[in-house]
């Protein structure tokens, strides 16, 4: 049943400073509200439990994309549409742009934000696999200051994150070291547009002659959080990508994920598709890396 709208606060402070002051003065009382593409769905379903929100949509401080020689830094309120339009992201981080283009339809992409996708903390989110594969870092700000941390490890369990009640996600930073890597992103859903993923796979890798030099392999919708598959990566590093290597990698991979049956798919289907995608990535890596 629909929520009772007067039960919900949505306050609009004038600046980032005011937002952080409110988060600091009443910790745990307020939560940020960005593009609303997830929270409003819960509201309509009568499942939005938290009642007090801070409207951060208009904060200029959290918008914009900046690049220097070593990194590109993306404001947390950058929309999927803005991600897709940015020339450096398109050229050097194509998986992030592909993820943005496959999230909802255009009306969602105009409103959904990269920061919202992280903080909503769905294991089926589309951009986190790409961000983890690109070794992203995130910046949390509060009245205490700012801290950067690796995105890997930020999500600790289903909807659990290493963020204080007074902190706000401000920016996401990607190292510009993707020259010559193979990028592999596949979202598997019921249809091409508007679907929530059954499995979402993102990986980057490089070859050194006939051996796998290095790679990062990430998969979503198959565990309580989006998973960076470090054991699988270790099993592959320095190996020649033949049948035996792939067989060993699949054994590690299966141990690192824990797909379940739910309304979108089955554990059996997810596991099979996940392994197929790993094999497909390794095939493309050996051909093109």
């Amino acid at each position, binding site marked *: 049943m629909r929520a009772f*709208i*007067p*039960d*919900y*606060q*949505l*306050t*609009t402070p004038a600046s980032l400073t005011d937002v952080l002051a409110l988060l600091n003065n009443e910790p745990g009382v307020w939560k940020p*509200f960005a593009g*609303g*593409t997830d929270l*409003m*769905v819960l*509201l*309509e*379903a009568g499942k939005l439990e938290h009642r007090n*929100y801070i*409207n951060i*949509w*208009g904060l200029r401080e959290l918008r914009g994309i900046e690049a220097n020689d070593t990194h590109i830094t993306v404001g947390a309120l950058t929309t999927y*549409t803005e991600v897709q339009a940015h020339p450096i992201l398109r050229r050097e981080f194509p998986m992030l742009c592909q993820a943005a283009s496959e999230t*909802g*339809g*255009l*009306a*969602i992409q*105009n*409103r959904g934000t990269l920061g919202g996708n992280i903080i909503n903390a769905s294991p089926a989110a589309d951009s986190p696999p790409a961000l983890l594969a690109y070794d992203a870092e995130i910046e949390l700000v509060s009245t205490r200051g700012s801290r950067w941390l690796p995105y890997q490890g930020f999500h600790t369990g289903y909807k659990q994150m290493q963020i204080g009640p007074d902190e706000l996600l401000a920016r996401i930073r990607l190292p510009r070291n993707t020259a010559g890597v193979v990028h592999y992103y596949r979202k598997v859903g019921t249809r*091409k*547009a*508007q679907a929530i993923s059954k499995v979402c796979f993102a990986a980057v890798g490089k070859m050194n002659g006939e051996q796998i030099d290095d790679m990062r392999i990430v998969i979503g919708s198959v565990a309580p959080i989006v998973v960076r598959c470090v054991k699988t990566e270790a099993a592959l590093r320095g190996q020649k990508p033949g049948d035996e290597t792939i067989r060993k990698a699949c054994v590690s991979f299966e141990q690192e994920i824990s797909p379940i049956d739910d309304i979108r798919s089955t554990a059996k289907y997810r596991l099979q598709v996940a392994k197929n995608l790993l094999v497909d990535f390794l095939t493309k890596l050996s051909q093109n890396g």
Partner: protein
Amino acid sequence: MSTTQVIEFTVNGQARSVEVFPMARLLDVLREQLQLTGTKEGCGEGECGACTVSIDGHIVNSCLVPAAQVNGAEITTIEGVAGADDLHAVQQAFIDHGGAQCGICTPGMVLAAVDLLKRNPEPTENDIRTGLAGNLCRCTGYMKIFESVVRACQK
């Protein structure tokens, strides 16, 4: 309980002011307070595109936008698409080529198509399919909608 607040914005070129709860859905504000009932509610969860409107030149699902986020915004609804004397080329094409049946998806389809042609006056077939991917229709089978947009591009 929250308290109501006054939101001021521009709708189809006219300055409007409404007193609303900040989390009220833009869709409801348009339909119930401003009587702009051309915008339809389909799924109410951002899947179907029936409630599409344009905010500051970008199409959105109005069921997913709280009123507090449109203070100062410029909004275009289906009522603001036609000119004073003529329909928009997209609207005329939907009439001429059977792009509408029951009519529930039509306002959203038209706004998505108008937005597409504004950004990209010569879209490819794939551009049209992508531009309309967030809008669902339960009647036409999509081909007549698709054809209508193709014809609108030719005008």
